[in-house]
């Protein structure tokens, strides 16, 4: 154990904690909540909040004033939000399997005031839950049972004797607590009246209703429904005896009822298109208080809400024929207000109202607040569900961009004379830079600096981050600040007539077609699922700087982004052919379609086909399998190359493939060193098989055999390295995270098996390095054919460490030339992004002995320590709460030392790291003035002493 302080000491020289002055300058963090499933506005003291449960399983409160996140709570992935209920100052959620977990949040702060697991009798059917609040207590309904919670304890539980009557709604009136349920099969209305104080049953009953009753709503003391067959509205009053009779209203032709979540208001829609706001009065009477006239629009939505004085509002919103969004807001005291605005793209999916202010969620994942027809704020919440992301370097400014090599002498002369007008600017800039004065932003791009125009900076820290989301949107983000540079919505092509969704699958960077050097286009391959179940593969080719479509060329970049249909059918896989701009698309019949589909590209495919191997996952009845494919051209089958299976990865029985981990970075970075030089100058040659990838498997069935980690050769499917690690627990899923770069594999898992003495449960991180053989033994693996015998000669070195955190994502840093060491970047379950230095993960750390002088000096080896200390200085995300990171993307900056790290999932976080230190930049504290003064002083000294020395020498000559 005495080695631990030594280890810490040694590590401290290389671990760079983030300086406080760098926070917000080199990094940025965007707190997101996800696309809301619903929205409810509440007014706790001194504030107005929008409470949203979201698609990312987060409950969040947004400040109504500016749209910022007041608080949020990320539920565990196994603990899905079943329902949420608001009551004045508290928000109650039911979550988890069977909606058994109850949490109560303080609305202002988001603090959990109560967290309780409610025990319900098992129900076979679907679970229905409802919550009402009355006189300081909370009543919870769960299908067959009602529980009353007061001051954190379950005071009583009432359980229905007849388990054939599921209840869906809970109603509280001064007379009692009622559970109401509508049977979908037997067209009966189940009712139960329960004493709110004792939990005793008052009465149980059921009412026979006409068949095909739909849109069942409870408001005030009334349960109301519409019978589409007779187009009549039926309702009944809830009394403790349950004896009230059903009243039917048949004069008007009713179509449906809409619950607007107000205590005693509901909306009834007539077949004529009119909509009536119905008031459920005391005594069980429904009265129409307002009529929304019929309109021409589609997508009608109703919503209700209370403003901060408690005044109820009901709003009807629709999209007019000319694609503007119109809304009518009704309140009893303020009458009717009409607003109309243009949403841009998408349709409104959820709506909440507060006075004349509307909070909308759109189908493109945006949350917006409109006041009258003014957009007050907008949140792009689709960024919480990023599917594909890529960094794109900004193009070189035009005037230094490129010199045509064939230009004539006179052309060059005129160009250079023309360029001379920049000379004064250059001199000023040079002098400024020399004097150490600003402009600093030009050099060190700051996250706080939003004003600067989009230009490439000297160090390449500023890049465009192109992200495609599951909601069919694509954004260009400024990597220096996280600002949205442009946002586009995928068009549906022919499917716009029937509707559908577009989901990006892959993203590639290709050189732009007009040939300007360094300029890249972003190619997004997306799957379009039309509402009529047809699936197409569409390619969008975008200019990353402006977001405009490159192919097909578009005039108006404000419209929907239209792509090019390339395959009328689903896509199997898509690959970018290395060292070319050709993308290979595999359709469902495994035919290879080059993109762009030109003669030249077809020729490229034909030429390179014999050397191409494609391993990917295919799903079969018994589960997914990893299969390798080659290409062949069979004119009898198809005029295109067809991929055919050449090998299949056979796993031990009971194991199935879970995931493929591709080697990072993509596209491959140059490899700086072919081996590892040891202290005694001998070399371990790295096993640099460029076809290696990782397959993670999991044991299936009850007797889980563990989780497999395999390194597989992509051309012939042979296993180069394999390990079997225990699953997180008996019967639980495998949660292995792995990353592979060059010859280095790092994986992380939870070991729940260590129960004996000297063993420990906990997370492990394992580092594996693959070598060509023993010391000085080489097979030249990186140029070997996969089918040569020597390619199977692999010598793994591995070590395992106890790690302090569970992780959700893992990757390595990547730099331009691969000279800087590579650190491991992990996103921990404690919502931090950490970097683990390469030195700590060196599998040659000597065990049970001290490293020799040579090893210490030359290799900087530190003694092995089974516990990897949890050093907070390795956190690169400062004190941000980076929630739900699913994926980390790293990309090189122009500086060799620096790598950009972008984590996404729920939140977005970007920073830059320098694994080997910023050896290629002068530190900020470097004293430029001192250097200049010293040089100047030395020059002066020479200038003064030179004539003196010369005179003296002359005199010496004379007197010799």
């Amino acid at each position, binding site marked *: 154990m005495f080695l631990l302080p030594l280890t810490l000491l040694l590590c401290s020289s290389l671990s760079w904690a983030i300086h406080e002055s760098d926070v917000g300058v080199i990094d940025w963090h965007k707190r997101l909540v996800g696309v809301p499933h619903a929205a409810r506005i509440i007014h706790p003291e001194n504030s107005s909040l929008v409470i949203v449960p979201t698609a990312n399983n987060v409950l969040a409160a947004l400040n109504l004033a500016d749209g910022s996140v007041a608080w949020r709570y990320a539920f565990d992935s196994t603990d899905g939000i079943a329902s949420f209920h608001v009551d004045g100052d508290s928000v109650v959620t039911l979550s988890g399997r069977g909606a058994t977990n109850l949490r109560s949040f303080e609305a202002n702060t988001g603090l959990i005031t109560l967290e309780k697991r409610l025990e319900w009798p098992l129900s076979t059917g679907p679970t229905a839950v409802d919550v009402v609040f009355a006189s300081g207590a909370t009543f919870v309904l769960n299908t067959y049972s009602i529980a009353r919670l007061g001051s954190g304890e379950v005071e009583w539980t009432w359980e229905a004797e007849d388990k054939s009557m599921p209840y869906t709604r809970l109603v509280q009136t001064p007379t009692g607590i009622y559970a109401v349920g509508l049977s979908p099969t037997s067209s009966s209305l189940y009712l139960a009246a329960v004493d709110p104080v004792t939990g005793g049953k008052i009465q149980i009953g059921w009412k026979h209703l006409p068949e095909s009753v739909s849109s069942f709503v409870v408001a005030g003391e009334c349960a109301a429904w519409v019978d589409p067959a007779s187009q009549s509205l039926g309702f009944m009053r809830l009394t403790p005896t349950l004896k009230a009779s059903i009243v039917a209203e048949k004069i008007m032709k009713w179509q449906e009822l809409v619950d607007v979540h107000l205590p005693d208001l509901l909306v009834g829609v007539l077949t004529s298109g009119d909509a009536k706001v119905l008031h459920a009065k005391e005594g069980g009477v429904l009265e129409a208080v307002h009529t929304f006239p019929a309109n021409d629009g589609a997508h009608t939505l109703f919503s209700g809400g209370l403003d901060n004085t408690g005044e109820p509002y009901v709003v009807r919103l629709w999209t007019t024929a000319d694609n503007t969004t119109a809304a009518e807001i009704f309140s009893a005291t303020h009458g009717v207000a009409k607003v109309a605005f243009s949403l841009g793209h998408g349709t409104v999916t959820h709506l909440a109202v507060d006075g004349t202010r509307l909070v909308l969620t759109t189908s493109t994942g945006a949350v917006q607040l409109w006041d009258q027809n003014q957009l007050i704020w907008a949140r792009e919440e689709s960024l919480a569900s990023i599917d594909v992301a890529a960094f794109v370097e900004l193009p070189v400014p035009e005037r230094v961009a490129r010199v045509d090599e064939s230009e004539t002498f006179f052309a060059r002369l005129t160009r250079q004379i023309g360029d001379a007008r920049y000379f004064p600017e250059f001199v000023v800039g040079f002098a400024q830079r020399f004097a150490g004065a600003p402009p600093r932003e030009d050099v060190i791009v700051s996250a706080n600096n939003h004003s600067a125009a989009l230009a490439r900076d000297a160090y390449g820290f500023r890049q465009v981050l192109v992200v495609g989301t599951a909601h069919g949107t694509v954004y260009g983000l400024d990597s220096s600040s996280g600002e949205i540079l442009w946002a586009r919505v995928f068009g549906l092509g022919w499917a716009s007539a029937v509707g559908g969704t577009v989901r990006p699958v892959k993203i590639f960077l290709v050189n732009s077609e007009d040939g300007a050097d360094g300029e890249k286009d972003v190619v997004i391959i997306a799957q379009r699922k039309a509402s009529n179940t047809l699936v197409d593969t569409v390619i969008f080719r975008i200019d990353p700087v402006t977001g405009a479509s490159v192919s097909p060329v578009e005039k108006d970049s404000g419209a929907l982004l239209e792509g090019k249909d390339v395959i009328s059918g689903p896509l199997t896989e898509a690959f970018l052919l290395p060292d070319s701009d050709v993308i290979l698309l595999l359709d469902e019949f495994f035919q290879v379609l080059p993109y762009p589909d030109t003669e030249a590209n077809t020729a490229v495919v034909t030429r390179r086909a014999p*050397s*191409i191997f494609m391993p990917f996952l295919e799903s079969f009845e018994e589960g997914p399998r990893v299969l390798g494919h080659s290409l062949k051209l069979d004119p009898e089958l198809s005029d295109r190359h067809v991929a055919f299976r050449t090998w299949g990865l056979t796993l031990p029985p009971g194991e199935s493939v879970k995931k493929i981990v591709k080697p990072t970075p993509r596209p491959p970075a140059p490899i700086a060193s072919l081996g590892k030089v040891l202290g*005694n*100058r001998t*070399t371990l040659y790295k096993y640099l098989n*460029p076809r290696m990838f990782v397959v993670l498997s999991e044991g299936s069935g009850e007797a889980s055999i563990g989780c497999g980690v395999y390194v597989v050769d992509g051309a012939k499917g042979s296993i180069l390295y394999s390990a079997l690690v225990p699953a997180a627990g008996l019967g639980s899923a495998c949660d292995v995270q792995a990353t592979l770069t060059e010859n280095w594999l790092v994986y992380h898992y939870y070991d729940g098996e260590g129960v004996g003495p000297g063993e420990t449960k906990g997370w492990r991180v394992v580092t594996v390095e693959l070598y060509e053989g023993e010391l000085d033994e080489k097979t030249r693996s*990186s140029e070997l*054919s996969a089918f040569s015998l020597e390619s199977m000669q692999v010598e793994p070195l591995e070590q395992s460490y106890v790690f302090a955190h569970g992780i959700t994502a893992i990757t390595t840093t990547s730099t331009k030339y691969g000279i800087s060491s590579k650190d491991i970047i992990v996103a921990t379950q404690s919502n931090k992004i950490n970097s683990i230095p390469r030195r700590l993960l060196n599998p040659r750390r000597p065990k049970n002995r001290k490293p020799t002088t040579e090893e210490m000096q030359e290799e900087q080896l530190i003694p092995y320590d089974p516990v990897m200390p949890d050093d907070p200085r390795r956190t690169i995300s400062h004190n941000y709460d980076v929630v739900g990171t699913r994926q980390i993307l790293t990309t090189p900056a122009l500086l060799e030392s620096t790598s950009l790290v972008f984590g996404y999932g729920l939140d977005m976080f970007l920073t830059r790291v320098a694994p080997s230190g910023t050896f290629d930049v002068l530190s900020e504290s470097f004293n430029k003035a001192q250097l200049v003064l010293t040089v100047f002083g030395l020059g002066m000294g020479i200038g003064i002493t030179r004539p003196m020395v010369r005179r003296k020498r002359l005199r010496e000559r004379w007197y010799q």
Partner: protein
Amino acid sequence: MSKNLEYSSLESSSKWRNLPPPPGFAKSASSKTTTKKSAPPPSSYDQLKEKRAFDFATAPAKSLPMQAFMLYMSGGGVQIFSMGIVVMLLLSPFKNLAGINEAFVPFAPSTAKDPKAFTTLLGQKLLYVACNALTLAVGLWKCRSMGLLPMGTGDWLAFETRGIAPEISLF
């Protein structure tokens, strides 16, 4: 206040110049004694020279312990002192060997036709070469221990190149 003292005037242009020397003073006393001494016979003179030549040839080896001590004191790091000593150790043998014929001219026997020829004093010269080689070896040994000699494969790793693998796997 400095005054130039011109003693030269005392010698040449003094008025006492023509005075007879004091009694017992002989102006060429020393030259007379040398001439009086009989020169040793050339053979024994050559023997002496040969001996001196041997001494000269083994001189580099004799200074080795001193240099080794200096090397030890200068340490194993790559610094200005250790580098200076190592450079000296590495360069001096070559310098010595380049001037080997000139260096042995004073020791050439009187019988030698051409004192600058390599064949004169061949044995001593070969010994001299060997001793210098010893110095060089010590210098190289020091270089190696400092890690300056490319001895292992690791030193040549940066120059190794690899071609492109015949198969590619797309991911």
